[in-house]
């Protein structure tokens, strides 16, 4: 016979089993004050991340070793960017990328839904990734950009592949999580099924250096297969099947 466990022991046990907000306790139907304010603070941080701006000065300084260009999407301000995802996928009309190398790999750093994520993690990912590539990749800072803005940028510089590093929609547990979307032979209007994705890049999630390693591995496999997205994932699954 097991001993009866007290309510507090059960609470401890539940908390060990999941990162969800279990065993908060309650007063009537209210969440205890500490937990209630902690939730509100996490939400405030997430909201701040959505409306944050890319620190372009610091990013430019840190990325000065590589060919670099700055662009904007067709969304004129943050508010229209949030309302109109279609505008965030298109480049502003005056875009000039003539300073970038052609026919190589291009890295696009876009604020997405959390510039905070870009400010915190993008330089670490890019620096490590550049050290793993055979030739240095051109870099584009894209303000108010969604993932698909990389397709147009990639097409403009005839890129072999585009790596879009973008701020993910902030969750309550992490407001600074970066995503990486990698597409072989980018061109406008291609379906999302053509991309491969690595998410949750941040301290406490997937470390930026590990993410760079994974991106480099994916790029090598794409080069070999000359394809990306669901089709690439499929071919890998097949290979594994044959190995087994």
């Amino acid at each position, binding site marked *: *016979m*097991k*001993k*009866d*466990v*007290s*309510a507090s*022991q*059960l609470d401890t*046990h*539940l*908390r060990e*089993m*999941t*990162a*969800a*907000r*279990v*065993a*908060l306790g*309650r007063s*009537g*139907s*209210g*969440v205890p004050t500490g*937990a209630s304010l902690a*939730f*509100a603070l*996490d*939400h405030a941080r*997430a*909201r701040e*991340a*959505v409306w944050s701006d890319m620190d372009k000065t610091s990013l430019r300084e840190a990325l000065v070793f590589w060919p670099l260009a700055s662009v904007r999407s067709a969304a004129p301000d943050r508010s229209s960017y*949030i*309302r*109109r*995802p*279609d505008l965030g996928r298109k480049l502003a009309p005056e875009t000039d990328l003539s300073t970038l190398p052609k026919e190589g790999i291009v890295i696009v750093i876009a604020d997405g*839904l959390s510039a905070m994520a870009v400010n915190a993690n993008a330089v670490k990912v890019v620096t490590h990734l550049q050290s793993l590539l055979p030739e240095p990749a051109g870099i584009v800072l894209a303000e108010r950009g969604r993932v698909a803005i990389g397709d147009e940028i990639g097409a403009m510089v005839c890129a072999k592949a585009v790596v879009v590093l973008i701020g993910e*929609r*902030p*969750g*309550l*547990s992490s407001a600074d999580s970066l995503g990486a979307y990698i597409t072989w032979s980018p061109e406008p209007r291609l379906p999302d099924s053509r991309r491969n994705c690595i998410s949750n890049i941040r301290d406490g999630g997937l470390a930026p250096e590990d993410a760079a390693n994974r991106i480099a591995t994916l790029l090598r496999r794409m080069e070999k297969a000359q394809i990306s997205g669901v089709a690439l994932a499929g071919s890998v699954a097949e290979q594994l099947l044959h190995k087994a």
Partner: protein
Amino acid sequence: MSYSSTIGKTRYSFESLKDLLAKATPERSGDELAGIAAEGPVERLAAQVALADLPLQSFLDTDILGVENDEITELIYSSHDLPAFAPISHMTMGEFREWLLAPTTTSEILNKLQPGLTPEMVAAVSKIMRSQDLIAVAQKCRVVTKFNNTIGLEGRMATRNQPNHPTDDSRGILASAIDGLIMGTGDAVIGVNPATDTVEDYIRIVSLLDRLVEALEIPTQHCCLGHVTVALEAIGRGAPVDLVFQSIAGSQKANEGFGVNLSLLCEAHEAALSLKRGRIGDNVMYFETGQGAALSADAHHGMDQQTMEARAYAVAREFRPLLVNTVVGFIGPEYLFNGKQIMRAGLEDHFCGKLFGLPMGVDVCYTNHTDADQNDMDSLLVSLSAAGVNFVICVPGADDIMLNYQSLSSHDAIFVRETLHKAPAPEFSDWMENKGITDKTGRMRSEPALSGPSLLALTEAAQ
């Protein structure tokens, strides 16, 4: 047929009924994104005035969506019942609104009316109703469904216990489920949105939930909200499937985007029925919907997102579901910009679903890039409770760590029971009292009284 109205000296014309419906829709970002919204508040009112004068009959005379070979349109017109429509056939939309509000229009009369309505009619009348109207009429609609308990009775509100986990870890799922059960959530369903999409994981999750429900003798049902094809495969392999789930939308093309059509849903419905698992009823389907789903799949065909949403209810009604809910604030600010738009949409969806005969629930929720917070959710919850919503969704501390959005907490379910005086499903209410969660008056006991050892044993069994 022309659609027009005159405001002052300005004449406003609308090129089709579809255009009129879009322009008459209360402000929302999704219709602006689609480029079909009114130019501003005066044109919107002009459209509403024109809509109010329109005979209901005109909704039967035209194919409003105007897309050839759409099986949802075919379903809507082939299932429409003219004798049931007869009592309102002479009315304009404005008269229909007043008739719905009249005290002489009772729950029984509204029940008989259901097959005589089309989704477009229901959506149209909601566009000229205030939030209070939507609550007052929905409150009169009663849709009761049964599987292992009874949901939708007057004066009651059920909850879905949603114990999601980012990697579908069995212990993680169990911890969140138990956390909710201790606070009395889960009479609508204990339902997991899986992060993975394999049939093996689906079977592991429903088997886990089945053991939980059995061990604690809970009079409820469980569900893994995987794709309907995965559910069919799991049923084929003998998994304990209570409810079959699917996301659905209001056009054939949008449903293709979800990888379903009516015949596949029919097959799944029959497979779920064949298991005969419901102890007191055979409502075996669970559907989720949400404004903007069709537009996001570029399958809205120029129709406003609220009318498209109502069309999804025609799909749902065909399969006599136990549960249907709109995931109202999940889709993001490009469809519903802020708390105000989410609240309005939540009340519209609930009203339209109920009037059309669905056991309607709402996932009262929002994402972090939308201008909304928990205060908005409180207001929507109170409104929905007044409207007699069949169920809402609860996650631990209102924070879904798998889907990364905020819904309601199990605490909010206690608020509904103790402040708004809505009890859970009767069978579940009895279970809570028997397990010592609540006292005889239905109030929470001060210490969680589900027995410690049995819960501990459960968590260990999941390892």
